[in-house]
């Protein structure tokens, strides 16, 4: 009883916080679950509401009502605008839309700071509520109790609309099969707009009412987005009740958890999330559970089980061949061309060679500051390549590669601190640490597909960030690490201090890492990944342990990110949590998108462009780095649907599989790289007006025959 008494206030606070998160997360879940838009600018919509509310609140009921109306309307309009912005991208899948919203979030955040200033705005609640009430012997702010009531009403109303009305039925039908909704005379486009506007209104209303709880400030959008993403991941998209309980749980962790166990609180979210991910993958996705583990004979995967049975009966069937259903006559050509570099191979390698020459010549061309930037760009480039491997090849779009990146970075910094300053040792140990980390979190990542991966990896990245902030003895907490000894390039050398030295070291490491990556991607292993991404069910049916491939890819990509982290620490000689934060993860993904999702060189160029934009161009317009990057994001998504790599092979909209570095990577008969135009999560839930109409079309038509007949 005493325990309850002591923690009553934080517990009630947790309910208020949780309900706030529920209203926000319900909008996010609605937009994603039914309109297919993973809205990474959802936090910005909340911030719009919060700023408007704070600006209009003057301590009267009228001020609150006016703020509520204006904030809700503003966020509602922004949501409708978001619908108009994402609708043209609907055919290009969820990822393109998610990226667009991220770009818009960057722009919106910058504009809000422009408009309302960089300080947190004070929020006044109506005077009638600006008092305390007696709650079982404790004084408790009346506003929060009132907020709890309003949030419950809002949640109940939303639930009623969604589950009991014809409009709600149309929304759920649109999530299920927009074409058939259209065939019953309802415009899916109108539903799409309505859903996003409603989601915006929810976020805006939550922002106005919740401003006294999560106030408007520069970090608001990100905090709100992250917490509501955690809620959505925990609650799943299937039921509002699950979202509700997840939201209250997160709210309690953030308030009651902090008051009961301040050291453990940051991990509680992680623990809850890990538990949910593991539980859900075991019970809700049984078809994939077996593939992740080694044993093929006993897992619940029917194909694996069947294979195990067959393997026991039939006389020694060979290991599944790497060739993916390729007619035997075609077998020789790709093998031949990969051994003897033909003209195509040279043409393909040419940009890489040109880039290498430029990179080698760079120290002679640039000043010291720019050289150090170039070194950072190489590190970010490697990180981007690891994202490419996952996004473009394995079909796992990730926002969480900063996690293994951070592991590598902190490993190197700590190694250096302990006196292990030899470069190759740092690199290898960092890669191993990052790979081990990737192996641990991998099973949670590889079970999901498409945008769900985006959410899970985002959560992993964020929670790694929380751990970084918490484990002060290893990471230095928010202060970061400085003053560790410089890395020595080789045994017996001196510590590198000169920018050009560091750059050359970074270049050598990057070249080796890129060469290794290219070698692996162009080997049969790369083809297995391509096949998995393109036609997973077919790969499974052909007897490939798909889960294992993806796990190996995830571990390798993690190692590569670890190398990138190590390199970054060596080049900049300090390490702060911001270097491994969400922004960097988003930049890496942007670099990949700019480059074209399957292009290694594109990822490097994209990283270079981003570093140049952030540190160079923005230098002449200080404080507007996010705005520029946001514009870059948006422009890339619209103008370069296949990234820079798309320019090379016929430009955007040039049809066919241009994102792929030509014939040696994918066997004929496997679908080509989708660029960001493809939905790695498969065609379900796509709002393209003819996605299902393509049923009669073969899923993959090799490029040369594209122009001719379609039916085989």
């Amino acid at each position, binding site marked *: 009883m005493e325990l309850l008494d002591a923690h009553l206030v934080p517990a009630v606070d947790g309910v208020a916080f949780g309900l706030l998160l529920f209203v926000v997360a319900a909008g996010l879940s609605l937009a994603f679950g039914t309109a297919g838009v993973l809205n990474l600018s959802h936090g910005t919509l909340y911030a719009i509401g919060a700023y408007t509310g704070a600006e209009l609140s003057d301590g009267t009921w009228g001020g609150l009502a006016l703020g509520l109306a204006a904030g809700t309307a503003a966020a509602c309009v922004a949501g409708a605008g978001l619908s108009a912005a994402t609708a043209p991208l609907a055919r290009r899948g969820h990822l393109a839309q998610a990226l667009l919203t991220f770009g818009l979030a960057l722009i919106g955040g910058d504009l809000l700071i422009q408009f309302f200033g960089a300080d947190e705005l004070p929020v006044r609640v109506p005077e009638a509520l600006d008092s305390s009430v007696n709650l079982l012997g404790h004084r408790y702010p009346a506003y929060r109790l009132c907020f709890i009531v309003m949030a419950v009403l809002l949640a109940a109303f939303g639930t009623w609309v969604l589950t009991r009305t*014809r409009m709600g*039925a*149309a929304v*759920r*039908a649109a*999530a*299920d*099969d927009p*074409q*058939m*909704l*259209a*065939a*019953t*005379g*309802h*415009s*899916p*486009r109108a539903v799409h707009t309505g859903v996003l506007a409603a989601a915006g209104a929810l976020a805006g209303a939550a922002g106005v009412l919740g401003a006294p709880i999560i106030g408007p400030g520069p970090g608001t959008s990100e905090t709100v987005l992250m917490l509501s993403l955690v809620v959505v991941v925990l609650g799943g998209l299937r039921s509002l009740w699950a979202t509700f309980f997840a939201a209250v749980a997160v709210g309690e962790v953030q308030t009651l958890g902090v008051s009961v166990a301040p050291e453990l609180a940051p991990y509680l979210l992680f623990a809850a999330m890990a538990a949910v991910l593991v539980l859900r993958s075991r019970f809700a996705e049984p078809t994939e559970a077996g593939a992740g583990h080694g044993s093929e004979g006993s897992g619940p995967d029917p194909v694996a089980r069947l294979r195990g049975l067959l393997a026991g009966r039939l006389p020694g069937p060979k290991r599944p061949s790497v060739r993916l259903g390729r007619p035997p006559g075609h077998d020789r050509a790709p093998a031949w061309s990969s051994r003897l570099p033909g003209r195509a191979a040279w043409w393909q390698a040419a940009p890489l060679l040109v880039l290498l020459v430029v990179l080698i010549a760079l120290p002679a061309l640039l000043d010291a500051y720019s050289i150090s930037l170039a070194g950072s760009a190489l590190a970010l480039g490697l990180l981007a390549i690891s994202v490419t491997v996952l996004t473009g090849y394995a079909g796992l779009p990730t926002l969480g590669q900063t996690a293994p990146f951070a592991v590598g970075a902190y490993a190197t910094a700590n190694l250096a601190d302990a006196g292990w300053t030899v470069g190759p040792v740092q690199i290898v140990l960092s890669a191993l640490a990052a790979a081990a980390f990737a192996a641990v979190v991998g099973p949670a990542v590889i079970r999901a597909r498409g945008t769900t991966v985006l959410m899970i990896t985002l959560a992993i990245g964020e929670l790694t960030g929380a751990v970084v902030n918490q484990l002060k003895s290893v990471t230095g907490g928010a202060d970061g690490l400085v003053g560790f000894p410089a890395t020595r390039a080789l045994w017996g050398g001196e510590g590198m201090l000169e920018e050009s030295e560091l750059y050359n070291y970074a270049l050598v490491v990057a070249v080796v890492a890129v060469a290794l990556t290219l070698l692996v991607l162009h080997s049969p292993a790369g083809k297995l990944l391509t096949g998995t991404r393109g036609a997973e069910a077919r790969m499974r049916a052909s007897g490939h342990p798909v889960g294992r491939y993806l796990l190996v890819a995830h571990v390798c990509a993690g190692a590569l990110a670890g190398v990138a982290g190590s390199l970054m620490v060596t080049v900049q000689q300090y390490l702060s949590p911001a270097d491994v934060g969400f922004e960097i993860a988003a930049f890496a993904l942007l670099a990949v998108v700019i480059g074209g999702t399957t292009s290694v060189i594109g990822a490097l160029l994209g990283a270079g462009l981003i570093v140049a934009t952030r540190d160079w161009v923005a230098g002449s317009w200080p404080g507007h780095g996010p705005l520029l990057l946001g514009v870059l994001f948006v422009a890339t998504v619209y103008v370069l649907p296949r990234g820079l790599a798309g320019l090379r092979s016929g430009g955007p909209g040039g*049809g*066919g599989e241009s994102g792929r570095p030509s014939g040696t990577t994918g066997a004929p008969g496997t679908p080509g790289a989708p660029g960001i135009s493809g939905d790695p999560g498969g065609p379900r839930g796509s709002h393209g*007006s*003819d996605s*299902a*109409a*393509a*049923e*009669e*079309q073969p899923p993959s*038509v090799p490029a040369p025959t*594209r*122009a*001719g*007949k*379609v*039916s*085989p």
Partner: protein
Amino acid sequence: MLELTGLTAGYHGGTVLHGLDLSVPAGTVHAVVGHNGAGKTTLVHTIAGLMRPSAGTVRLDGRDVTGQPAHRIARAGIGLVPQGRRVFAGLTVDEHLRLSHRPPRRGDTARPSVWTPARVLELLPRLGERRGNRGTDLSGGEQQMLALARALLGSPRVLLLDEPTEGLAPVLVRQIDALVTTLAAEGLAVLLVSPSPAQAAACARTLTVLTSGRMALRLSGEEARADATALHAALELTAPGA
């Protein structure tokens, strides 16, 4: 009355349907027969507005609806029963009926008959027993009934049936065939797409054989019922891959 003239459609890179002319007068069944890949579903999707034709026109009682978005075409009076039923997984039968119920606008008297959920349940009583069940909890036959109910509740003038008996037991096939005849007798123009020449001949006043997206043969139902040789010949001679 549904009229197609020179309808041409395809997917990026290839044309599937080549200049098809076809008309379905009100109160009749027109069957389109063809093998897999002949372009049957493409035809249905193009009429329903799920795909845009690259050439040709679709007219509904003389009104050009070519290239309009699917929901407009549906409102104009074209009901679609798609291949594979495609009922909404998350909606109950009741919600399906409520969502699809769209009474014709006042003054729109060209509808052969006006459907309400009650009337649909009279025609398809089985659905009445499953009103609380979700779409995917239904059996294949019930899903087909639900897909038909969904199309009827828009009180269409034209009904597009894309392989409505696919995967159903013979007794259900006969039931569906009877329903098709009943509905046509009410004044609906029915376009029935089927891989089965027997079903087509049994229901239709006119048959069109589609091969590789082109009309290979057109004959009347009586001709087909009297002597199926020509029909079979048209289907088998040009069978792709045969």
